[in-house]
């Protein structure tokens, strides 16, 4: 890049110098030659005029005259007297008798016409150029011959050679100088152009936060300045675009719905965080991929296909094969219709898992309540009918029947009581009588109360208070109920002769009470549903043990009403740990 520029500049200089040289050589040498020749010719002419004075027509030159003539001509010059017919009469360098006729020589012809004749010819005998000047010899207006002076031009040619050599040498010097200047110039030019190139490249790659400064004040600097301001403008533009995009994507990412945008060919144009969490967990981006690579869900595929065909918006509900299973309502809307086809499709995934769960809980609840009530009612009805049909007189069995009716009625009463408690707590209308209580005492009371249940199956409940008193703001009866329910459950879960521990731990500003058993444990699939009303892990067993299926639900609601949290951990075959937190009273 740099060298190419240098070579270009150098070649330009070289061409320029050569052209200059040629012109210089041509004009200068010709000019010098002409001037010099003129000067010599003039000198020769003057000499010839002087010499002509001494020459008389038809009088041959004497010896002295010849000597005078010879002395008057410049060195190397030759004097020739030619009579009108071209016959040489006298010559300083050769014998006239041996010389050929000169009638055809151009300078002689000129001179015979009364003018000064001049000619330059190459002498084949001496191999040099000769300048011939001939003047007419006149006497009384009659031309009786011509006097010709010949002068070798070898000196002149030598002179011209010298001039030429000088021109060449100085040209060479000029060329070397030009090369040096060209090199330096091209180097600085190339480095500046290179700087500009790098700068524009870095702008092209998106780095707008830099500026370029160049030495000098020429067009390149102007270019640099405009590049700088371009970079500035691009930077502000991109900043605002970035901010806008960040704002949009933040909004999009923080909506609770999953968003997917497809183009008309079902390629993915945009996704948000929720959508990625559902379908594209593992790979950095789904954007640009065809839809079928990302959405591998049979119902959703069918839905998208059908909706694209109909070209109008549609909504569907579907389940995602996740553990735990999640439910979604998906709405696909076409936007930007052009030529009957929409350019973009926006799909919104609305999570209905919680709604589905509530719906299921509601359905289950109604079914469960009916079921729970039907059994005791059927028993009561059955025994009542038996009694009515005459068994009332059977003194032996009457008492047994009545006792059964009483038991079932009691169970119904407990059930409705529990339901009532639950609904009042849920409605926030339960009259909790909160006061400052010692948690230690409540726990100790509960341990004593549960003893009657635990004793028959030889289960022991252990509690060792670690602190003398633990003040907690709560409704003592409610918390007593919570502990009783948890301990009751733990006894039911325990194997005969098992052990139950109550642990107390302080976590930040809360105290955690845990009831730990080493019984049969609960399958992990059942854990999330334990707090639901009537949810039983082992349906047959629980009812046998006299539970209403509402115990844990009540516990959960009481704890939550105390701003606490119920937590259940369990390992199948190893036991369970039911814990709840209560906020510690401020001193």
């Amino acid at each position: 890049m740099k060298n190419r520029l240098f070579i270009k500049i150098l070649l330009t200089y070289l061409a320029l110098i050569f052209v200059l040289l040629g012109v210089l050589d041509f004009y200068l040498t010709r000019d010098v030659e002409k001037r010099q020749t003129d000067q010599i010719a003039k000198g020769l002419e003057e000499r010839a005029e002087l010499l002509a004075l001494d020459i008389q027509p038809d009088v041959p030159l004497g010896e002295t005259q010849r000597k005078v003539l010879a002395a008057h001509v410049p060195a190397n010059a030759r004097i020739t007297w030619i009579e009108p017919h071209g016959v040489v009469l006298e010559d300083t360098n050769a014998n006239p008798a041996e010389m050929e006729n000169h009638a055809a020589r151009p300078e002689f012809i000129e001179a015979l016409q009364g003018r000064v004749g001049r000619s330059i010819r190459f002498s084949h005998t001496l191999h040099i150029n000769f300048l011939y000047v001939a003047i007419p010899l006149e006497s009384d207006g009659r031309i009786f011959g011509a006097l010709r002076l010949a002068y070798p031009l070898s000196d002149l040619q030598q002179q011209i050679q010298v001039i030429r050599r000088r021109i060449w040498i100085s040209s060479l010097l000029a060329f070397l100088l030009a090369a040096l200047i060209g090199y330096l110039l091209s180097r600085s030019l190339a480095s500046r152009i290179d700087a500009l190139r790098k700068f524009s490249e870095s702008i092209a790659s998106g780095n707008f936060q830099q500026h370029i400064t160049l030495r000098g004040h020429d067009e390149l600097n102007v270019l640099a300045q405009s590049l700088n301001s371009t970079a500035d403008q691009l930077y502000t533009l991109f900043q605002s675009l970035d901010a806008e995009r960040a704002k949009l994507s933040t909004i999009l990412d923080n909506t609770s719905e999953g968003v997917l945008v497809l183009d008309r060919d079902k390629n993915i144009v945009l996704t948000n965080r929720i959508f990625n969490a559902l379908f594209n967990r593992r790979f950095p981006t789904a954007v640009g991929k065809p839809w079928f690579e990302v959405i591998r869900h049979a119902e959703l595929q069918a839905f998208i296909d059908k909706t694209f065909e109909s070209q109008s918006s549609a909504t569907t509900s579907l389940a995602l094969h996740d553990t735990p299973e999640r439910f979604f309502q998906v709405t696909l809307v076409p936007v930007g219709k052009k030529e009957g086809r929409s350019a973009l499709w926006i799909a919104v995934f609305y999570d209905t898992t919680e709604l589905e769960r509530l719906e299921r809980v509601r359905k289950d609840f109604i079914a469960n309540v009916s079921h729970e009530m039907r059994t005791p009612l059927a028993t009561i009805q059955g025994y009542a009918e038996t009694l009515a049909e005459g068994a009332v007189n059977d003194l032996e069995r009457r008492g047994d029947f009545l006792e059964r009716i009483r038991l079932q009625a009691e169970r119904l009463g407990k059930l409705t009581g529990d339901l009532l408690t639950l609904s009042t707590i849920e409605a926030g209308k339960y009259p909790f009588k909160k006061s400052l209580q010692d948690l230690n005492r409540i726990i100790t009371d509960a341990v004593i109360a549960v003893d009657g249940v635990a004793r028959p199956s030889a289960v022991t409940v252990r509690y060792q208070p670690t602190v003398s008193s633990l003040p907690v703001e709560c409704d003592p009866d409610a918390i007593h109920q919570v502990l009783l329910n948890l301990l009751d459950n733990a006894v039911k879960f325990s194997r005969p002769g098992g052990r139950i521990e109550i642990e107390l731990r302080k976590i930040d500003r809360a105290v955690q009470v845990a009831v730990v058993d080493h019984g049969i444990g609960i399958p992990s699939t059942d854990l999330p549903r334990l707090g639901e009303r009537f949810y039983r892990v082992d349906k047959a067993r629980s009812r046998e043990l006299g539970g209403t299926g509402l115990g844990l639900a009540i516990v959960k609601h009481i704890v939550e009403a105390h701003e606490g949290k119920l937590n259940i951990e369990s390992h199948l075959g190893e036991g369970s740990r039911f814990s709840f937190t209560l906020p510690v009273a401020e001193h």
Partner: protein
Amino acid sequence: MHRHFEEELSELKQKLLSMGSLVERSLHQSIKALIERDAQMGLKVFDDEEPINRLQIEIDDRAMRLLALQQPMAGDLRLIASVVKINNDLERIGDQCVNITQRVLSLMHQTPISPLIDMPRMAAAAEKMLHDALDAFVNRNADLARTVLESDDTVDHLRDDIFQELVKYMSAHPEGVQAALDLLLISRNIERIADHATNIAEDAIFVVAGRDVRHHMEETSKEK
């Protein structure tokens, strides 16, 4: 002409992935039917059998046509060959799902063996393997495919554990032998599914790296 080929290749991939979605759904539904003792869910699996079989034939036809008419080279050829193989594996997984469902329906008539021991875990592992293998194929991710190959061992171990437990259960509860046998067959079905998922993962590696990793070919070639 070439553009046409690209389109056809993309359609072939799309068909295969539709098939993948259907089979994934079948697997999920058959497992759900098992865990939740939901006969209704099981019937849905039978409904999917027919479209899966139809898709298998369509994919094979398309692949053969592409091979015959376009004579693809190198990467494209590998891709089409893998599609054919994955297609086959997917169909077999679909069959296994049907088998599982038949066992599940048989289990409905018996007293449940509670709990199902490690069956849900094993099923979840197989489901994840299938999902990851297809993900690896779609996204041309050999690393992900290799994790699938590794998790095959987990499934095998789980199957062995389940086998032991069920044998113990059968000797203790002779009345539950039928149910235990059904569970045993289901665990075998799930294991087969995991094997097919492994095949798919191997094909995914073949497409990406052009290397055959079946029967530990990769390890032996490394040793040389």
